[in-house]
């Protein structure tokens, strides 16, 4: 078992720290934050401080990122595994479909899916999905293609190794090889891919919410900035924008550090 790189620990600690901070400051003890916020009140919501809105938004953004990242990674893994097991023309066509999906920008497709999903919800046929669930499903439907391509390539590499050939020669079925031999080798890579999807999902959600298309309540970071952007432009919004930006950058930095370190370790293994 190779040691987990320091870079990955730093990234995971940053993510965990931000998560704990947003939970404590934004959800459990918001009144402490409200009393001690050095950035003052929000210009468009005088009853709330900038710190309350930023940390509350971070908690929602992080929750959406984790849920959407996990769902899109799971979908990608499922598609890649099924494609590899089917093989041949079906695998080629599924991967071409994934490439076509991957070519379209996340933000554009999420906007279209939000429009479709909201119309379904308004008509009472949204299968009980609220704004949070709708956003998670939209992001997962957009984000599965990248992980599917990466998992398929990784599976292809792993299947070329001798222990897999030996297992097959001994009569191991496709699902047996996948479950017993490939999955243990794939697990760290799955974590790396999940962490790489996390910032992408958070950034796509922030942008779509900023446009006012997603109706996230309580507000995510993007919706928080989007609902008051006219006031931010005309009343000097740096006091409001900078904390949200810093939190987003730290979040992405943590996820990127951990994801890159784990992916490099997996490739070397």
């Amino acid at each position: 078992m190779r040691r987990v790189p320091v870079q990955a620990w730093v990234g995971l600690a940053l993510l965990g720290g931000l998560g704990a901070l947003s939970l404590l400051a934004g959800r459990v003890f918001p009144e402490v934050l409200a009393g001690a916020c050095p950035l003052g009140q929000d210009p468009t919501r005088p009853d709330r401080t900038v710190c309350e809105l930023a940390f509350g938004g971070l908690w929602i953004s992080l929750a959406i990122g984790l849920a959407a990242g996990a769902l899109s990674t799971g979908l990608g893994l499922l598609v890649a595994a099924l494609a590899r097991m089917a093989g041949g023309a079906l695998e080629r066509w599924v991967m071409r479909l994934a490439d076509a999906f991957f070519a379209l920008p996340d933000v554009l497709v999420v906007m279209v899916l939000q429009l479709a999903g909201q119309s379904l919800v308004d008509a009472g046929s949204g299968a009980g999905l609220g704004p949070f669930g709708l956003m998670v499903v939209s992001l997962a439907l957009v984000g599965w293609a990248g992980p599917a391509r990466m998992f398929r390539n990784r599976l292809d590499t792993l299947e070329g190794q001798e222990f897999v050939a030996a297992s097959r020669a001994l009569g191991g079925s496709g699902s047996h090889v996948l479950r017993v031999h490939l999955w243990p080798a794939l697990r760290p890579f799955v974590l790396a891919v999940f962490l790489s999807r996390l910032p992408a999902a958070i950034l796509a959600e922030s942008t779509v919410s900023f446009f006012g298309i997603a109706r996230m309540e309580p507000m995510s970071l993007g919706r928080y900035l989007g609902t008051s952007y006219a006031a931010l432009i005309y009343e000097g919004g740096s006091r409001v924008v900078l904390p949200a930006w810093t939190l987003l950058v730290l979040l992405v930095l943590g996820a990127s550090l951990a994801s890159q370190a784990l992916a490099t370790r997996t490739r070397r293994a």
Partner: protein
Amino acid sequence: MRQLLVRVGRQLVLVPIVALASYFLMASLPLTTEDDNKRQVSPELAASYRRDLGIGEPLGFLRPWQKLFRGERLGTSAQGVTGDELLLKLSGSVGVGLVALALALSWAMAFALLKNRWRSGRLAVLGDAVPAVAFGTPVFIPALLLAPAVVERGNLLPELTAALVISVWPGVFLGTLLGDALETELARDYVRTAASKGLSPGVVLRRHVLPNVLPALLDAIGPVATALLAGSFAAERVFGLPYFGQLYVLAVLQKQVAVVVVATTVFASVLVVVGLGVEVVRLIVDPRAREARA
């Protein structure tokens, strides 16, 4: 030649797929006009929805395009768009995107050279930190910070600022790729040979190294074009630019579904054109690509 045609065909097929997928997704939406629903659409919008999408008609998916080519308005009278207006808005966005691409290439070259210089020193950590900060910054954040200074000045300043804002992440992304490719190429024997024959470092870089690095950049132009166009949505919204990105966001917000179908397809077409352009440029600048085709 056959391989080239297959590649072109694979890119072109994206356009009808996107056109049909977006049409059938939009045509299946249950837009409601009932008074007891809080979020009902206006009767005018519902009428334009059925009319523009040709709901219930054979070959209804051609209806938005038919209207567009006839010069008729898609969507409602106040918020819809004609073919000419769509082209005008698209040209505005493409103009901003082209300026942003030029800026992104400049950032890429500067960042790659800096990253190469930082690699051996104490500033090496910046080579990883700058991409993380650039990636972690959605376009609307620098746009919000710069908007108070430019939004009411006009004289193309909002357009130029939008191009500047959307070029940062693609520039740093390209710069990272370019930096890694430069590091690999600079360690090769032909560079040492050229330098030992007395050529200056600038000449070695320009004449020998860059032509070998360019194909790596071309591979990244597709994702960069996607990022530039997607970034333009946020920048145009914040700076109030009445171009394609703003049109798209407003069409989604106002449920102008026929406009969404057409704009999504046009967006995919622009990406395909960029992809084909990259293939042509690759054939021109990369002899290895020509040999592979032969």
